Each structure stands twice: as C-alpha cells, then as structure tokens.
C-alpha cells in the first residue's frame, strides 16, 4: 500500500515518511497559500476541502520526522491562518514544532513551561495535555507523565488514545496489572478493535511469563491471553500478530502440559483442554506459514503485511520446525 497523506503517518516506516515529506514542495506550491477563515471570504476565495487540512497536518508530522523543519513551519503557518492561533489542535502542533526545534534540554524545559502556562488558563485543553504527557515521557520523567495522564483520564475517561498511551507507559515500567486495566478500558471503548485485543493478549502473555510458571496468576493470564488472541483472529482472520501470539501461547502451554494443571474456579477464565490447544496450535502454524509464503512471494491480496512482522513469523516457524526435527531424530 502506497503511503497516503490522508492517513496519519505514525505507523509509517522511515522510508515511507521520507517519501511523503518529499511531496511537501509540490503540495505547498499547488495549494493556495492563505485561506480566509471568515465566512464571507470563504464564498469568494478558492474552495477548500477537509482533505486539504488533513494533508497539511500529516505533511507537518512527516516533515518533522524527516527533519524538514522549514516545510513543517510553512504547513503550520497555513493551518494557523485558517483556524486561528487559539485553536487547540494548532496550539498542540505549534508546541510540537517547538519541541522539534529545541537544540538542548533547556529549550525543552521552556516548551514544557509554555504548556503549563496554557493549561493554567484552560485546563480542558486536551491536545496540549497530551503533548505535555508525550514531552514528559520523551524527557524520561515517566512517573510525572503517568500522573498527568491519569489526571487527564479522570476528567475524560472516554479517551481511547489516552488509555492506550497509559497502558504503554505502565508496560514500559513493568506494571502489568495496571497496563492490562488501562488497555481493557480501550477495549470497552472500541469493542471490535482486533489489534487492541491482540495487544491485550500480548500483555497478558508478558504478565504470565513475568510472574513465572509457578505463580497463582499464571494460569489466569495464560488463559486470558489465549482467548484474547483467539478473539482477535475471530474479528480479523488475516491478522498476523494474532496468529503469532496464538502460536506462542499454545506452544508454551503444550510444552508445560506435562505438569499437573491446577485450575482455580474463581470466576475467571479457564484454559481449554490439551487437545483443543493442540488444534489451535496447528491452526496458527498453518495460517502463519500460509501468510509468510504468500507475503514473501508478493501474491496479490497478500501484500500490506509489515516486513518485520513477517520476518519474525518466519523465524518463529523455523525455530518450531528445527525443534520438531530434533525430537524426531
């Protein structure tokens, strides 16, 4: 899939981001330099479309990533001319550009001060609050970032972006139960998001491995991890990460199946029996190898998988195969 300026560029590879930012001169030249924000002016000037502004925003982000600060500045000026300096999104973008321009940590401190000033005036400015959290995180002050984010989520608990960032922050600190709780909030807000289900499965798996096989919560985490991956695949039956995780979990469970599994029935989820786990493992292996085969060959309808993820899947499969051949020998 070719990178498009209509989608936010956060997931793009560096090469794709570079390609996008190289479109900057052409786009900046072809579009009118100012669009008036007054309704009267809008009637007489050239027509505008929401797509144009989405393009400007995404171009701004791509340009910042590739270091084209001049073009980024230009995008920002145009956005500001249209929507006004006191628009919350524009304020956040301006802060972002300043952060990118900052040469040394002292400048970043100044930007942080600015954010705090803005928030003192208007404490419901969500874009700026999020920028502040991101800045705190990139400056390594994670605990402050967490507390700022928790404060944001206290008055706006329906913000999926905030919850997933919080989950990521907790995960980076190894606080699995908190991370899982935050991600479950995202699942509540977006019940059909298969990527979030798979991510939750990954977190449960990490929590299980961290607590060790003997721990009492191990079974619970493994069971939920298995089910989350299964649900993710049920929602999107081509999702590579879902199959990868399913294979990982089932392989681990099968390896340990010799041990007596003591299941506690405290209302939690229960692990399925061994034959089901085996069949799930076979299913995941078959589907993964199919994806890897087609994707490597570049077949029609199988493109669009992340190369890194496909490579990881291939590695997992080959590890599995070598282990199997060792046993046979």
């Amino acid at each position, binding site marked *: 899939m070719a990178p498009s300026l209509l989608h936010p560029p956060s997931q793009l590879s560096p090469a794709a981001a570079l390609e996008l930012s190289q479109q900057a001169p052409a786009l900046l030249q072809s579009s009118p330099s100012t669009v008036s924000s007054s309704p009267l002016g809008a009637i007489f000037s050239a027509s505008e479309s929401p797509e144009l502004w989405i393009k400007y925003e995404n171009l701004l982000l791509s340009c910042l990533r590739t270091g084209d600060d001049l073009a980024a500045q230009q995008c920002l000026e145009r956005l500001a001319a249209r929507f006004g300096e006191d628009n919350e999104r524009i304020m956040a973008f301006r802060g972002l550009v300043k952060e990118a321009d900052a040469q040394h940590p002292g400048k970043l401190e100044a930007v942080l001060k600015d954010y705090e000033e803005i928030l003192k005036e208007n404490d419901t400015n969500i874009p700026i609050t999020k920028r502040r959290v991101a800045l705190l995180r990139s400056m390594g002050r994670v605990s402050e970032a967490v507390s700022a984010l928790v404060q944001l989520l206290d008055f706006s608990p329906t913000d999926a972006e905030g919850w997933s960032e919080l989950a990521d922050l907790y995960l980076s600190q190894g606080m699995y139960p908190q991370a899982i709780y935050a991600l479950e909030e995202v699942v509540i807000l977006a019940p*059909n998001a298969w990527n979030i289900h798979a991510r939750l499965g990954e977190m449960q798996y990490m929590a299980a491995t961290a607590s060790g096989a003997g721990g009492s919560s191990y079974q619970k985490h493994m069971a939920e991890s298995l089910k989350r991956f299964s649900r993710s695949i049920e*929602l999107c039956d081509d999702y590579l990460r879902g199959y990868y995780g399913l294979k990982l979990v089932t392989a681990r469970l099968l390896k340990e199946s010799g041990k007596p599994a003591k299941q506690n029935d405290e209302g939690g989820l229960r692990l399925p029996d061994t034959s089901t786990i085996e069949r799930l493992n076979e299913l995941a292996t078959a589907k993964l190898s199919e994806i890897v085969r087609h994707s490597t060959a570049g077949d029609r309808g199988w493109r669009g998988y992340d190369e890194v993820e496909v490579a990881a899947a291939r590695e997992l499969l080959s590890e599995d195969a070598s282990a199997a051949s060792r046993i046979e020998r």
Partner: protein
Amino acid sequence: MSVEREFQIAPIVQEAVVHNSRTLLNLQSLTASLFGVGAGILGLESYSGFLFYLVCSLLTAMLFYVVRVAPTSLASGTGTGGGGAFDTSRYFRSQVEFWTGGLMNGLAGFILTWTLFYGLVRA
C-alpha cells in the same frame, strides 16, 4: 444463542451498513426521477404509469443485485443465509428493504417528474 449475543460475537459495523443503504437510496431516488421523465414522455396515464414505475424499480433492484451484490455474495458463500439465490444479507440487513424500498423512497420524485413531463409533452 440470542440474536444480541450473535451480534456481539460477529459485529456489524454501523458505518458500513449506513454507507450501503445510502448508496441504495441514492440509486433509487435518481432512477425514480428518470423513470418519471420516461413515463411523462411516453404519456402514460393512471394505472399504466404506476405499473411502469413498479416494473422499472423492480428491474433496477434486480440489476443492482445481479451487477453489484450477487458476484461477491455468491462467490464468498458466507452471505447465503438461507435465502438461496436472491439473498442480499451480505450487504443489507433487510431483504424487504432491498427489493421494495425503492418503491417508497422514489415515489415522490417519480410523481413530480412524471407530472412535469406529462404536462410539458401532452397538455
């Protein structure tokens, strides 16, 4: 298993449903207006005019089914939930809406253009 649970397990994306029915509605109201032009120019009166409209809108639904719905529905095999060859459940929630919805949606537009062109041509 209750219907509600089934929808929770296999969710239906509301936006897609809205988009599909909006496409259908657009087609229906456009064709209804055009049929009105046709009926007016042909100078059809009373029952024959309404019959013309009925036949034409059913024909449109049929063509829409054959050209747009049937190929993917029948190929995937998942959409055939008991309706046999004329099953539209892959794209539309209600069969009745698909086949006869056009009759109601386009009627006002049909009468408007029918009257206009009948008046222009005949009277």
